[in-house]
């Protein structure tokens, strides 16, 4: 009996020990589950916090980038590394932030695609698809369509503007067609054009702008004299300044400022690109002629623009009161398609919103992958 009890007791102790070890392991697993969960949450918080700090950093300095991986050795009890690089999505420029948080070996990553907010607008000088301070002639098969279009040239109903607006006479010749929108009604390009969408000999309150900066709205729109030229010379946002158009690189972006000598002509031109294209000199006789190549999306501000043979999606503004060649805007197969979006995007390539409102992102956060 004594032996049996002894065996039983020893067996129980052995069984208890085994079960106890198992229980301890199970309790340990339970604790580890909680710890792992905490580590995951902490790592994610670190990744997101660092990403937010970087958004703020880029907001403070739009040109800030970290093209190689940077490390933060101590943040929120863990560590992090990050990169801030330029990227392109659907041909549009974005900034990509990759932030990785590490908390006691648990790693979480946040990937952000952000954009400097566009401050694009349509200058009040844009009265029509083509606005001029001089007599205009349309010839050949030129199409001027003041109806609204998207940036791909697809029609948007009821939101357009006039076809041509001028302080002088407008003559529609050849097989050229003019369309536009008046009081919400769209008029398809035709010859003769509907009189509602062609406005000639119009007064311009305060006098027609005689510089590209005043076309953009001048000081009131943060374009004091010389701003466009300075932007172009700075190279910001892909801008270019030249006195010799053969040195331009394509596609045009930001502000492309072509300053020609008096009477200078940029002939047989390629205008492929986006943004704001300026052809100007102080005597208002810089000419862009025979625009034969490329599609331009945005706004063209030229002293004198003639013989358009390609496509402009946006708007054209001519400054000079004394045009060459009778200012025949086009005499071939060119087309000018008014586009609010193309103008806004084009201006927005160089006009950015900054510091708008407390506790707001000063950047557009397009996507946040966490």
């Amino acid at each position, binding site marked *: *009996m004594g032996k049996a009890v002894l065996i039983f007791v020893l067996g129980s102790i052995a069984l208890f020990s085994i079960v106890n070890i198992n229980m301890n392991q199970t309790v340990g697993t339970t604790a580890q589950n909680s710890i792992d969960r905490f580590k995951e949450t902490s790592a994610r918080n670190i990744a997101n916090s660092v990403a937010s700090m970087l958004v703020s950093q880029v907001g403070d300095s739009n040109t800030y980038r970290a093209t190689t991986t940077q490390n933060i050795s101590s943040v929120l009890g863990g560590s992090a590394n990050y990169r801030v690089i330029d990227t392109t999505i659907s041909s549009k420029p974005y900034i990509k932030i990759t932030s990785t948080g590490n908390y006691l070996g648990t790693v979480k990553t946040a990937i952000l695609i952000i954009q400097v907010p566009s401050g694009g607008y349509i200058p009040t000088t844009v009265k029509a698809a083509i606005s001029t301070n001089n007599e205009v002639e349309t010839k050949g098969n030129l199409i001027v369509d003041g109806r609204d279009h998207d940036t791909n040239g697809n029609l948007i109903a009821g939101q357009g503007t006039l076809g041509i607006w001028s302080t002088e006479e407008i003559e529609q010749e050849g097989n050229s067609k003019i369309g536009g929108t008046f009081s919400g009604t769209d008029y398809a390009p035709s010859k003769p054009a509907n009189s509602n969408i062609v406005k000639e000999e119009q007064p311009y309150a305060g006098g027609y702008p005689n510089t590209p900066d005043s076309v953009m709205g001048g000081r009131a729109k943060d374009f004091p004299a010389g701003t466009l030229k300075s932007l172009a010379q700075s190279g910001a946002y892909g801008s270019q300044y030249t006195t010799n158009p053969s040195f331009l690189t394509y596609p045009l972006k930001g502000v492309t400022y072509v300053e020609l000598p008096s009477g200078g002509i940029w002939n047989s031109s390629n205008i492929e690109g986006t943004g704001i294209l300026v052809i100007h000199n102080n005597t208002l006789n810089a000419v862009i002629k025979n625009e034969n190549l490329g599609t331009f999306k945005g706004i063209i501000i030229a002293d004198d623009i003639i013989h358009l043979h390609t496509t402009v999606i946006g708007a054209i503004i001519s400054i000079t009161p004394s045009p060459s060649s009778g200012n025949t805007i086009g005499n071939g197969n060119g087309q000018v398609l008014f586009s609010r979006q193309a103008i806004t995007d084009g201006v927005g390539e160089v006009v950015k919103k900054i510091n708008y409102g407390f506790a707001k992102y000063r950047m557009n956060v397009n996507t946040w992958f966490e």
Partner: protein
Amino acid sequence: MGQLLELLGASIIGGFIMLIGLALNMQISDSSREIFQSTYNQRSAITASQVIEYDLYKAGYAATGEKITQADSNAVKFRSDFDNNGTIDTIYYYTGAASAMTSTSNPNDRQLFRKINNQSANLVSIITRFNIVYYDSIGNQLNYSSLSSSVQRAKIRGMRTYVKTELPDAINNLYNPMEWREIIRPKNLL
């Protein structure tokens, strides 16, 4: 006579020791089962929370147009490029019927499913309750009945998810519930 008393005493003491040992073993067995099941239960809740978190934080990611296409108290369907491969997917969370769980004694347990696009639904976890409350940008709770409208669903900025898991079979008449509750504010809905 003395030997008889000694034998009787030893038997009684030995019997007590055996009873104590048996009781101890039974208690250890119960505790062990309870702890093991609780761990399983916790694991179920954590698994569910990890999967739901992973997806919900990405709700609306890279999607244009309508981002949340269904918002019910126990089901949600949203669009997101959750795997970041450039393709927008539709993710659908919903629960099965409690009656479908025939092999367990818990009357409330049911399956929580996750369905991607038109693929077969995958089991996320066994739960006893799955509930989502929707909030707008300033934290006001959105009424479920209003969320049949896409205009109202477009106002969703936060989702409070609640998952309750229980043991499939009771231990000492208890199902040892485990709850997970979290307000998720998907950044791509902001």
